[in-house]
Protein backbone atom coordinates (compact mmCIF):
# COMPACT_ATOMS: atom_id res chain seq x y z
CA UNK A 1 0.00 0.00 0.00
CA UNK A 2 2.90 2.29 0.78
CA UNK A 3 4.41 2.29 -2.69
CA UNK A 4 1.31 3.59 -4.53
CA UNK A 5 0.89 6.33 -1.95
CA UNK A 6 4.47 7.47 -2.44
CA UNK A 7 4.03 7.45 -6.20
CA UNK A 8 0.75 9.35 -5.91
CA UNK A 9 2.33 12.00 -3.73
CA UNK A 10 5.20 12.14 -6.20
CA UNK A 11 2.87 12.75 -9.12
CA UNK A 12 0.82 15.41 -7.46
CA UNK A 13 3.82 17.21 -6.02
CA UNK A 14 6.08 17.22 -9.01
CA UNK A 15 3.91 16.78 -12.08
CA UNK A 16 2.54 20.33 -12.35
CA UNK A 17 5.94 21.92 -11.86
CA UNK A 18 8.28 22.52 -14.75
CA UNK A 19 8.17 19.95 -17.49
CA UNK A 20 4.43 19.72 -17.94
CA UNK A 21 5.03 18.78 -21.58
CA UNK A 22 5.78 15.27 -20.24
CA UNK A 23 2.29 15.01 -18.75
CA UNK A 24 -0.38 13.36 -20.86
CA UNK A 25 -4.01 12.74 -20.04
CA UNK A 26 -6.23 10.15 -21.62
CA UNK A 27 -9.26 8.24 -20.51
CA UNK A 28 -12.23 6.07 -21.24
CA UNK A 29 -15.86 5.90 -20.32
CA UNK A 30 -18.80 3.62 -20.84
CA UNK A 31 -22.51 3.99 -20.30
CA UNK A 32 -24.28 0.65 -20.24
CA UNK A 33 -27.97 -0.05 -19.82
CA UNK A 34 -29.44 -3.48 -19.40
CA UNK A 35 -32.07 -5.78 -17.95
CA UNK A 36 -32.91 -9.45 -17.71
CA UNK A 37 -36.33 -10.87 -18.44
CA UNK A 38 -36.98 -12.55 -15.10
CA UNK A 39 -37.89 -11.34 -11.63
CA UNK A 40 -36.82 -14.58 -10.00
CA UNK A 41 -33.12 -13.79 -10.01
CA UNK A 42 -30.56 -11.12 -10.78
CA UNK A 43 -27.54 -11.54 -13.04
CA UNK A 44 -24.50 -9.31 -12.60
CA UNK A 45 -26.72 -6.89 -10.74
CA UNK A 46 -29.34 -6.75 -13.51
CA UNK A 47 -32.96 -7.42 -12.68
CA UNK A 48 -36.07 -7.07 -14.79
CA UNK A 49 -36.10 -3.29 -14.76
CA UNK A 50 -33.67 -1.28 -16.85
CA UNK A 51 -30.52 -0.31 -14.97
CA UNK A 52 -27.75 2.03 -16.03
CA UNK A 53 -25.58 1.57 -13.00
CA UNK A 54 -24.14 -1.95 -13.18
CA UNK A 55 -21.30 -1.32 -15.59
CA UNK A 56 -21.15 2.39 -16.34
CA UNK A 57 -17.86 4.04 -15.47
CA UNK A 58 -15.40 6.78 -16.33
CA UNK A 59 -11.63 6.68 -15.97
CA UNK A 60 -8.89 9.23 -16.32
CA UNK A 61 -5.32 8.16 -16.97
CA UNK A 62 -2.33 10.40 -16.41
CA UNK A 63 1.07 9.48 -17.81
CA UNK A 64 4.04 11.53 -16.84
CA UNK A 65 7.47 10.99 -18.44
CA UNK A 66 10.50 11.91 -16.37
CA UNK A 67 12.86 10.98 -19.19
CA UNK A 68 12.77 8.86 -22.33
CA UNK A 69 12.88 5.66 -20.28
CA UNK A 70 11.17 6.55 -16.97
CA UNK A 71 7.51 7.36 -16.58
CA UNK A 72 4.71 7.12 -14.08
CA UNK A 73 1.09 6.29 -14.84
CA UNK A 74 -2.05 6.51 -12.81
CA UNK A 75 -5.60 5.54 -13.61
CA UNK A 76 -8.48 6.91 -11.59
CA UNK A 77 -11.69 4.99 -12.02
CA UNK A 78 -15.21 6.04 -11.03
CA UNK A 79 -17.90 3.34 -11.08
CA UNK A 80 -21.62 3.34 -10.64
CA UNK A 81 -21.55 -0.36 -9.66
CA UNK A 82 -22.31 -0.81 -5.95
CA UNK A 83 -20.12 -3.90 -5.79
CA UNK A 84 -16.98 -2.10 -6.87
CA UNK A 85 -15.02 0.62 -5.24
CA UNK A 86 -14.10 3.77 -7.12
CA UNK A 87 -10.55 4.98 -6.82
CA UNK A 88 -7.06 4.44 -8.09
CA UNK A 89 -7.00 1.27 -10.18
CA UNK A 90 -3.50 1.59 -11.56
CA UNK A 91 -0.53 3.43 -10.24
CA UNK A 92 2.88 2.42 -11.39
CA UNK A 93 6.35 3.42 -12.39
CA UNK A 94 7.63 2.28 -15.76
CA UNK A 95 11.21 1.78 -16.75
CA UNK A 96 11.42 1.14 -20.48
CA UNK A 97 15.00 1.27 -21.72
CA UNK A 98 13.88 0.12 -25.19
CA UNK A 99 10.71 -0.51 -27.23
CA UNK A 100 11.00 -4.20 -26.46
CA UNK A 101 11.61 -4.24 -22.73
CA UNK A 102 9.83 -2.63 -19.79
CA UNK A 103 9.53 -3.03 -16.05
CA UNK A 104 6.50 -1.70 -14.14
CA UNK A 105 6.19 -1.42 -10.38
CA UNK A 106 3.25 -0.33 -8.26
CA UNK A 107 -0.43 -1.20 -8.34
CA UNK A 108 -1.10 -3.08 -11.56
CA UNK A 109 -3.91 -5.03 -13.10
CA UNK A 110 -3.34 -8.77 -13.38
CA UNK A 111 -2.89 -9.93 -16.97
CA UNK A 112 -4.50 -13.29 -17.55
CA UNK A 113 -7.25 -13.46 -20.14
CA UNK A 114 -6.90 -11.61 -23.42
CA UNK A 115 -8.83 -8.60 -22.12
CA UNK A 116 -8.29 -9.00 -18.35
CA UNK A 117 -6.22 -5.89 -17.92
CA UNK A 118 -8.57 -3.74 -20.04
CA UNK A 119 -11.86 -5.22 -18.86
CA UNK A 120 -13.09 -1.74 -17.91
CA UNK A 121 -12.19 -0.37 -21.34
CA UNK A 122 -15.21 -1.59 -23.25
CA UNK A 123 -13.94 0.16 -26.38
CA UNK A 124 -11.08 -2.37 -26.52
CA UNK A 125 -13.27 -5.42 -27.13
CA UNK A 126 -16.34 -6.36 -29.16
CA UNK A 127 -18.82 -7.32 -26.42
CA UNK A 128 -20.61 -5.20 -23.86
CA UNK A 129 -20.22 -8.06 -21.43
CA UNK A 130 -17.13 -10.22 -21.99
CA UNK A 131 -18.02 -13.90 -21.39
CA UNK A 132 -18.89 -14.04 -17.71
CA UNK A 133 -17.75 -17.66 -17.44
CA UNK A 134 -14.15 -16.46 -17.79
CA UNK A 135 -14.20 -12.75 -17.11
CA UNK A 136 -16.16 -12.72 -13.86
CA UNK A 137 -14.19 -11.11 -11.10
CA UNK A 138 -13.31 -14.33 -9.32
CA UNK A 139 -9.69 -14.01 -10.22
CA UNK A 140 -7.22 -11.64 -8.75
CA UNK A 141 -7.97 -8.58 -10.81
CA UNK A 142 -5.14 -6.38 -9.56
CA UNK A 143 -1.99 -6.72 -7.52
CA UNK A 144 0.69 -4.64 -5.88
CA UNK A 145 4.07 -5.64 -7.09
CA UNK A 146 6.11 -5.57 -10.27
CA UNK A 147 6.15 -7.01 -13.76
CA UNK A 148 8.63 -7.33 -16.60
CA UNK A 149 7.61 -7.37 -20.25
CA UNK A 150 9.92 -8.54 -23.00
CA UNK A 151 9.26 -8.63 -26.74
CA UNK A 152 11.33 -10.79 -29.10
CA UNK A 153 11.06 -11.09 -32.86
CA UNK A 154 11.81 -14.36 -34.66
CA UNK A 155 11.49 -13.69 -38.37
CA UNK A 156 7.88 -12.54 -38.80
CA UNK A 157 6.80 -13.95 -35.45
CA UNK A 158 6.58 -11.55 -32.52
CA UNK A 159 6.58 -13.10 -29.06
CA UNK A 160 5.68 -11.19 -25.89
CA UNK A 161 6.69 -12.50 -22.50
CA UNK A 162 5.39 -11.11 -19.24
CA UNK A 163 6.17 -12.21 -15.70
CA UNK A 164 4.87 -10.64 -12.50
CA UNK A 165 5.04 -10.97 -8.75
CA UNK A 166 3.05 -9.27 -6.04
CA UNK A 167 0.32 -9.45 -3.48
CA UNK A 168 -3.40 -9.18 -3.73
CA UNK A 169 -6.02 -8.09 -1.26
CA UNK A 170 -9.66 -7.59 -2.04
CA UNK A 171 -13.22 -7.91 -0.94
CA UNK A 172 -15.33 -9.85 -3.37
CA UNK A 173 -19.01 -10.32 -3.52
CA UNK A 174 -20.02 -13.63 -4.96
CA UNK A 175 -23.67 -14.66 -5.10
CA UNK A 176 -24.49 -12.32 -2.24
CA UNK A 177 -21.63 -13.41 0.06
CA UNK A 178 -18.86 -11.04 1.05
CA UNK A 179 -15.43 -12.64 0.90
CA UNK A 180 -12.17 -11.05 2.04
CA UNK A 181 -9.28 -12.47 0.07
CA UNK A 182 -5.58 -12.11 0.68
CA UNK A 183 -2.78 -13.60 -1.40
CA UNK A 184 0.76 -12.78 -0.41
CA UNK A 185 2.83 -14.47 -3.06
CA UNK A 186 0.93 -14.01 -6.26
CA UNK A 187 3.03 -14.70 -9.34
CA UNK A 188 2.37 -15.62 -12.91
CA UNK A 189 3.21 -15.16 -16.52
CA UNK A 190 1.86 -14.68 -20.00
CA UNK A 191 3.30 -15.74 -23.34
CA UNK A 192 1.72 -14.28 -26.44
CA UNK A 193 2.75 -15.31 -29.94
CA UNK A 194 1.69 -13.12 -32.87
CA UNK A 195 2.10 -14.04 -36.51
CA UNK A 196 0.22 -11.69 -38.82
CA UNK A 197 -3.42 -11.86 -37.71
CA UNK A 198 -2.88 -15.07 -35.74
CA UNK A 199 -2.43 -14.90 -32.00
CA UNK A 200 -1.73 -17.70 -29.53
CA UNK A 201 -1.76 -16.95 -25.83
CA UNK A 202 -1.09 -18.88 -22.69
CA UNK A 203 -1.15 -17.59 -19.13
CA UNK A 204 -1.08 -18.82 -15.61
CA UNK A 205 -1.45 -17.35 -12.13
CA UNK A 206 0.07 -19.06 -9.13
CA UNK A 207 -1.25 -18.46 -5.68
CA UNK A 208 0.49 -20.80 -3.25
CA UNK A 209 -1.74 -19.67 -0.40
CA UNK A 210 -5.04 -17.88 -0.75
CA UNK A 211 -6.31 -16.62 2.59
CA UNK A 212 -9.97 -15.78 2.80
CA UNK A 213 -12.22 -14.56 5.52
CA UNK A 214 -15.96 -14.87 5.19
CA UNK A 215 -17.53 -13.06 8.11
CA UNK A 216 -20.90 -14.74 7.56
CA UNK A 217 -19.52 -18.20 8.31
CA UNK A 218 -16.97 -17.39 11.02
CA UNK A 219 -19.36 -18.02 13.97
CA UNK A 220 -20.40 -21.36 12.49
CA UNK A 221 -16.79 -22.47 12.00
CA UNK A 222 -16.08 -21.59 15.62
CA UNK A 223 -19.11 -23.58 16.69
CA UNK A 224 -17.97 -26.59 14.66
CA UNK A 225 -14.51 -26.46 16.18
CA UNK A 226 -15.92 -26.10 19.70
CA UNK A 227 -18.10 -29.17 19.12
CA UNK A 228 -15.07 -31.16 17.94
CA UNK A 229 -15.87 -31.20 14.20
CA UNK A 230 -12.52 -29.76 13.20
CA UNK A 231 -12.28 -31.59 9.91
CA UNK A 232 -15.58 -30.16 8.68
CA UNK A 233 -14.57 -26.69 9.78
CA UNK A 234 -11.22 -26.99 8.01
CA UNK A 235 -12.92 -27.94 4.78
CA UNK A 236 -14.76 -24.66 4.82
CA UNK A 237 -11.66 -22.62 5.43
CA UNK A 238 -10.34 -21.30 2.18
CA UNK A 239 -6.64 -21.09 2.89
CA UNK A 240 -4.93 -23.01 0.18
CA UNK A 241 -3.60 -23.05 -3.35
CA UNK A 242 -5.50 -22.02 -6.48
CA UNK A 243 -4.01 -22.01 -9.96
CA UNK A 244 -5.76 -20.98 -13.13
CA UNK A 245 -4.34 -21.90 -16.51
CA UNK A 246 -5.34 -20.34 -19.83
CA UNK A 247 -5.03 -21.06 -23.54
CA UNK A 248 -6.25 -18.59 -26.13
CA UNK A 249 -6.25 -18.40 -29.89
CA UNK A 250 -7.53 -15.79 -32.28
CA UNK A 251 -7.31 -14.94 -35.94
CA UNK A 252 -8.07 -11.48 -37.25
CA UNK A 253 -8.72 -11.07 -40.97
CA UNK A 254 -9.69 -7.82 -42.70
CA UNK A 255 -13.44 -8.29 -42.37
CA UNK A 256 -13.88 -11.17 -39.92
CA UNK A 257 -12.30 -12.80 -36.91
CA UNK A 258 -12.52 -15.89 -34.77
CA UNK A 259 -11.32 -16.05 -31.21
CA UNK A 260 -11.53 -18.38 -28.28
CA UNK A 261 -10.16 -18.85 -24.81
CA UNK A 262 -10.16 -21.92 -22.56
CA UNK A 263 -9.52 -21.67 -18.85
CA UNK A 264 -9.09 -24.24 -16.13
CA UNK A 265 -8.90 -23.31 -12.48
CA UNK A 266 -7.66 -26.10 -10.30
CA UNK A 267 -7.46 -25.63 -6.61
CA UNK A 268 -6.83 -27.49 -3.39
CA UNK A 269 -9.57 -25.45 -1.75
CA UNK A 270 -12.36 -27.96 -1.10
CA UNK A 271 -15.31 -25.66 -1.51
CA UNK A 272 -14.06 -23.85 -4.61
CA UNK A 273 -12.93 -27.01 -6.36
CA UNK A 274 -12.36 -26.89 -10.07
CA UNK A 275 -13.72 -24.67 -12.78
CA UNK A 276 -13.38 -25.20 -16.49
CA UNK A 277 -14.71 -22.69 -18.97
CA UNK A 278 -14.32 -21.54 -22.54
CA UNK A 279 -15.80 -19.35 -25.23
CA UNK A 280 -15.68 -19.31 -28.99
CA UNK A 281 -16.53 -16.13 -30.86
CA UNK A 282 -16.97 -15.15 -34.49
CA UNK A 283 -17.25 -11.62 -35.79
CA UNK A 284 -18.00 -10.18 -39.22
CA UNK A 285 -17.61 -6.55 -40.33
CA UNK A 286 -20.19 -4.90 -42.55
CA UNK A 287 -18.58 -1.52 -43.20
CA UNK A 288 -18.32 0.17 -39.80
CA UNK A 289 -20.61 -2.32 -38.11
CA UNK A 290 -19.35 -5.48 -36.46
CA UNK A 291 -21.76 -8.37 -35.91
CA UNK A 292 -20.60 -11.06 -33.52
CA UNK A 293 -21.78 -14.35 -32.10
CA UNK A 294 -20.29 -16.02 -29.03
CA UNK A 295 -20.88 -19.32 -27.30
CA UNK A 296 -19.53 -19.63 -23.77
CA UNK A 297 -19.73 -22.41 -21.22
CA UNK A 298 -18.53 -23.13 -17.71
CA UNK A 299 -18.55 -26.19 -15.47
CA UNK A 300 -17.64 -26.13 -11.83
CA UNK A 301 -17.05 -29.32 -9.93
CA UNK A 302 -17.63 -28.89 -6.26
CA UNK A 303 -16.55 -31.41 -3.66
CA UNK A 304 -19.50 -31.45 -1.33
CA UNK A 305 -18.32 -31.61 2.20
CA UNK A 306 -19.39 -34.75 4.01
CA UNK A 307 -21.65 -33.78 6.85
CA UNK A 308 -20.66 -36.17 9.64
CA UNK A 309 -22.64 -34.44 12.38
CA UNK A 310 -25.13 -36.90 13.90
CA UNK A 311 -28.78 -35.85 13.71
CA UNK A 312 -31.28 -36.35 16.52
CA UNK A 313 -28.77 -36.47 19.36
CA UNK A 314 -29.27 -32.98 20.62
CA UNK A 315 -30.91 -29.87 19.32
CA UNK A 316 -27.55 -28.05 19.35
CA UNK A 317 -26.02 -30.69 17.07
CA UNK A 318 -29.10 -30.63 14.87
CA UNK A 319 -28.66 -26.93 14.45
CA UNK A 320 -25.03 -27.42 13.51
CA UNK A 321 -25.99 -30.15 11.05
CA UNK A 322 -28.46 -27.92 9.26
CA UNK A 323 -26.04 -25.02 9.31
CA UNK A 324 -23.43 -27.17 7.53
CA UNK A 325 -26.03 -28.31 5.00
CA UNK A 326 -26.92 -24.70 4.36
CA UNK A 327 -23.27 -23.76 4.07
CA UNK A 328 -22.75 -26.50 1.52
CA UNK A 329 -25.36 -24.88 -0.68
CA UNK A 330 -23.90 -21.44 0.01
CA UNK A 331 -20.88 -21.80 -2.26
CA UNK A 332 -21.46 -20.97 -5.89
CA UNK A 333 -21.70 -23.62 -8.55
CA UNK A 334 -21.42 -21.60 -11.69
CA UNK A 335 -22.45 -23.93 -14.48
CA UNK A 336 -23.74 -21.78 -17.31
CA UNK A 337 -24.00 -21.90 -21.10
CA UNK A 338 -24.64 -18.70 -23.03
CA UNK A 339 -25.23 -17.59 -26.58
CA UNK A 340 -24.49 -13.95 -27.18
CA UNK A 341 -25.40 -12.03 -30.32
CA UNK A 342 -24.09 -8.50 -30.55
CA UNK A 343 -23.41 -5.54 -32.78
CA UNK A 344 -20.82 -2.81 -32.50
CA UNK A 345 -20.94 0.31 -34.61
CA UNK A 346 -17.94 2.64 -34.50
CA UNK A 347 -19.65 5.96 -35.16
CA UNK A 348 -16.36 7.85 -34.74
CA UNK A 349 -12.78 6.67 -34.33
CA UNK A 350 -13.17 6.97 -30.55
CA UNK A 351 -16.87 6.26 -29.99
CA UNK A 352 -18.67 2.94 -30.42
CA UNK A 353 -22.31 2.01 -29.93
CA UNK A 354 -23.10 -1.53 -28.95
CA UNK A 355 -26.18 -3.69 -28.54
CA UNK A 356 -26.20 -7.21 -27.21
CA UNK A 357 -28.54 -10.09 -26.46
CA UNK A 358 -27.42 -13.01 -24.29
CA UNK A 359 -29.39 -16.18 -23.79
CA UNK A 360 -28.42 -17.53 -20.37
CA UNK A 361 -28.89 -21.26 -19.97
CA UNK A 362 -28.07 -22.09 -16.36
CA UNK A 363 -28.34 -25.48 -14.73
CA UNK A 364 -30.98 -26.57 -12.27
CA UNK A 365 -29.78 -26.71 -8.70
CA UNK A 366 -26.72 -24.60 -9.54
CA UNK A 367 -26.13 -20.92 -8.95
CA UNK A 368 -25.06 -20.35 -12.59
CA UNK A 369 -23.75 -16.82 -11.84
CA UNK A 370 -27.22 -15.72 -10.73
CA UNK A 371 -28.32 -14.32 -7.40
CA UNK A 372 -31.40 -16.46 -7.10
CA UNK A 373 -34.40 -14.92 -5.37
CA UNK A 374 -37.01 -17.59 -5.95
CA UNK A 375 -36.09 -21.24 -5.71
CA UNK A 376 -38.40 -22.29 -8.53
CA UNK A 377 -36.36 -20.19 -10.98
CA UNK A 378 -35.42 -22.42 -13.92
CA UNK A 379 -32.00 -20.69 -14.41
CA UNK A 380 -32.91 -19.55 -17.90
CA UNK A 381 -33.08 -15.87 -18.81
CA UNK A 382 -32.33 -13.39 -21.55
CA UNK A 383 -30.04 -10.42 -20.92
CA UNK A 384 -30.47 -7.28 -23.03
CA UNK A 385 -27.84 -4.55 -23.04
CA UNK A 386 -26.99 -1.39 -24.96
CA UNK A 387 -23.85 0.66 -24.48
CA UNK A 388 -21.85 3.67 -25.55
CA UNK A 389 -18.07 3.23 -25.34
CA UNK A 390 -15.76 6.20 -25.48
CA UNK A 391 -12.00 6.72 -25.36
CA UNK A 392 -10.31 10.09 -25.20
Amino acid at each position, binding site marked *: MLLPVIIAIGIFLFAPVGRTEGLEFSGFARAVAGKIDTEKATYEGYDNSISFSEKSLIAL*QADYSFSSSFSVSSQLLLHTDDDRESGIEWLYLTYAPS*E*SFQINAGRLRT*PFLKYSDVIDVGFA*YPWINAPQQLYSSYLFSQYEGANARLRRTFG*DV*VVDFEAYYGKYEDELESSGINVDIEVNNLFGGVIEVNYGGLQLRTATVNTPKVETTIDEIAPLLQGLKAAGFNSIAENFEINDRAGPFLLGVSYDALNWYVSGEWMKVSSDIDVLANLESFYVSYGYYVDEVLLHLTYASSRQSLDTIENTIPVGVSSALDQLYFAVEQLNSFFPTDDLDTWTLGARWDVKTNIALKAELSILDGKEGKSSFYDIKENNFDRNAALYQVAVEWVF
Partner: protein
Amino acid sequence: MRKQMLFFFLLLCSRIAVAQDGVWVVANVSEQNFALTKAEVRNLFMRSTTSSSDALIPVAMSPGNRSRAIFNSKIIALTESRIQSYWAQMRFSGRQIPPIEFNSLDALLEHVTNTEGAIGYVPAGTALPENVKVVYRSF
Protein backbone atom coordinates in the same frame (compact mmCIF):
# COMPACT_ATOMS: atom_id res chain seq x y z
CA MET B 1 -9.49 11.95 -83.24
CA ARG B 2 -12.03 12.61 -80.50
CA LYS B 3 -12.24 8.87 -79.85
CA GLN B 4 -8.47 8.68 -79.49
CA MET B 5 -8.48 11.70 -77.17
CA LEU B 6 -11.13 10.01 -75.07
CA PHE B 7 -9.08 6.81 -75.02
CA PHE B 8 -5.97 8.65 -73.80
CA PHE B 9 -8.03 10.55 -71.29
CA LEU B 10 -9.45 7.28 -69.94
CA LEU B 11 -5.97 5.76 -69.89
CA LEU B 12 -4.70 8.75 -67.93
CA CYS B 13 -7.59 8.50 -65.48
CA SER B 14 -7.01 4.81 -64.92
CA ARG B 15 -3.30 5.43 -64.35
CA ILE B 16 -4.09 8.06 -61.75
CA ALA B 17 -6.59 5.71 -60.14
CA VAL B 18 -3.98 2.94 -59.99
CA ALA B 19 -1.42 5.32 -58.56
CA GLN B 20 -3.88 6.46 -55.89
CA ASP B 21 -4.63 2.91 -54.86
CA GLY B 22 -1.07 2.15 -53.91
CA VAL B 23 1.02 3.27 -50.96
CA TRP B 24 4.73 3.48 -50.53
CA VAL B 25 6.28 2.88 -47.17
CA VAL B 26 9.07 5.44 -46.91
CA ALA B 27 11.86 5.84 -44.38
CA ASN B 28 14.70 8.14 -43.48
CA VAL B 29 17.47 5.54 -43.59
CA SER B 30 21.04 5.86 -44.78
CA GLU B 31 21.45 2.32 -46.09
CA GLN B 32 21.03 2.43 -49.87
CA ASN B 33 19.17 -0.82 -50.55
CA PHE B 34 17.20 -0.98 -47.33
CA ALA B 35 13.90 -2.82 -47.83
CA LEU B 36 11.23 -4.37 -45.67
CA THR B 37 8.72 -7.15 -46.28
CA LYS B 38 4.99 -6.60 -45.80
CA ALA B 39 5.05 -8.63 -42.55
CA GLU B 40 7.93 -6.51 -41.25
CA VAL B 41 6.04 -3.30 -42.03
CA ARG B 42 2.98 -4.66 -40.21
CA ASN B 43 4.99 -5.65 -37.14
CA LEU B 44 6.69 -2.29 -37.10
CA PHE B 45 3.43 -0.31 -37.22
CA MET B 46 1.50 -2.56 -34.84
CA ARG B 47 4.20 -3.72 -32.43
CA SER B 48 7.14 -1.33 -32.96
CA THR B 49 9.43 -4.19 -33.84
CA THR B 50 11.05 -5.94 -36.80
CA SER B 51 13.72 -8.57 -37.13
CA SER B 52 15.81 -6.32 -39.37
CA SER B 53 15.92 -3.08 -37.41
CA ASP B 54 14.83 -1.83 -34.02
CA ALA B 55 15.80 1.73 -34.73
CA LEU B 56 12.83 2.61 -36.95
CA ILE B 57 10.10 4.79 -35.47
CA PRO B 58 6.75 4.57 -37.30
CA VAL B 59 4.53 7.59 -37.97
CA ALA B 60 1.05 7.44 -39.48
CA MET B 61 -1.60 9.51 -41.22
CA SER B 62 -4.72 10.48 -39.27
CA PRO B 63 -7.86 8.34 -39.54
CA GLY B 64 -9.98 9.33 -42.51
CA ASN B 65 -6.95 9.84 -44.74
CA ARG B 66 -7.08 7.81 -47.96
CA SER B 67 -3.48 6.54 -47.71
CA ARG B 68 -4.23 5.35 -44.19
CA ALA B 69 -7.31 3.47 -45.38
CA ILE B 70 -5.25 1.75 -48.09
CA PHE B 71 -2.40 1.04 -45.68
CA ASN B 72 -4.85 -0.42 -43.14
CA SER B 73 -6.54 -2.72 -45.60
CA LYS B 74 -3.51 -3.81 -47.63
CA ILE B 75 -0.72 -4.02 -45.07
CA ILE B 76 -2.23 -4.13 -41.58
CA ALA B 77 -5.22 -6.09 -42.93
CA LEU B 78 -7.57 -4.79 -40.23
CA THR B 79 -10.44 -2.31 -40.27
CA GLU B 80 -9.94 1.16 -38.81
CA SER B 81 -12.27 0.31 -35.91
CA ARG B 82 -10.35 -2.86 -35.08
CA ILE B 83 -7.10 -0.88 -35.12
CA GLN B 84 -8.59 1.77 -32.83
CA SER B 85 -9.77 -0.84 -30.31
CA TYR B 86 -6.35 -2.51 -30.46
CA TRP B 87 -4.63 0.77 -29.58
CA ALA B 88 -7.11 1.42 -26.76
CA GLN B 89 -6.12 -1.97 -25.35
CA MET B 90 -2.39 -1.25 -25.69
CA ARG B 91 -2.62 2.26 -24.24
CA PHE B 92 -4.80 1.46 -21.25
CA SER B 93 -2.83 -1.65 -20.33
CA GLY B 94 0.35 0.44 -20.31
CA ARG B 95 1.98 -1.54 -23.12
CA GLN B 96 2.40 0.76 -26.04
CA ILE B 97 1.04 3.90 -27.62
CA PRO B 98 0.11 4.26 -31.31
CA PRO B 99 2.44 5.94 -33.83
CA ILE B 100 2.30 9.75 -33.98
CA GLU B 101 -0.30 10.86 -36.54
CA PHE B 102 -0.15 13.63 -39.11
CA ASN B 103 -3.05 15.42 -40.77
CA SER B 104 -1.36 16.08 -44.08
CA LEU B 105 1.06 14.37 -46.41
CA ASP B 106 3.36 17.43 -46.29
CA ALA B 107 3.56 17.38 -42.50
CA LEU B 108 4.32 13.65 -42.46
CA LEU B 109 6.96 13.97 -45.17
CA GLU B 110 8.57 16.90 -43.40
CA HIS B 111 8.81 14.85 -40.20
CA VAL B 112 10.29 11.82 -41.97
CA THR B 113 12.75 14.04 -43.87
CA ASN B 114 14.00 15.66 -40.66
CA THR B 115 14.00 12.59 -38.39
CA GLU B 116 16.55 9.84 -38.83
CA GLY B 117 14.89 6.41 -38.51
CA ALA B 118 11.37 7.76 -39.07
CA ILE B 119 9.16 5.57 -41.25
CA GLY B 120 5.76 6.45 -42.69
CA TYR B 121 3.60 5.88 -45.73
CA VAL B 122 2.64 8.07 -48.68
CA PRO B 123 0.54 7.64 -51.86
CA ALA B 124 2.50 5.69 -54.48
CA GLY B 125 4.25 8.06 -56.85
CA THR B 126 4.81 10.86 -54.32
CA ALA B 127 7.95 12.90 -55.05
CA LEU B 128 10.41 12.24 -52.23
CA PRO B 129 13.31 14.21 -50.80
CA GLU B 130 16.73 12.65 -51.37
CA ASN B 131 17.20 11.19 -47.89
CA VAL B 132 13.79 9.48 -47.85
CA LYS B 133 13.69 6.06 -49.49
CA VAL B 134 10.91 3.72 -50.50
CA VAL B 135 11.34 0.60 -48.36
CA TYR B 136 8.14 -1.23 -49.33
CA ARG B 137 5.74 -0.83 -52.27
CA SER B 138 2.08 -1.85 -52.08
CA PHE B 139 -0.01 -1.62 -55.25
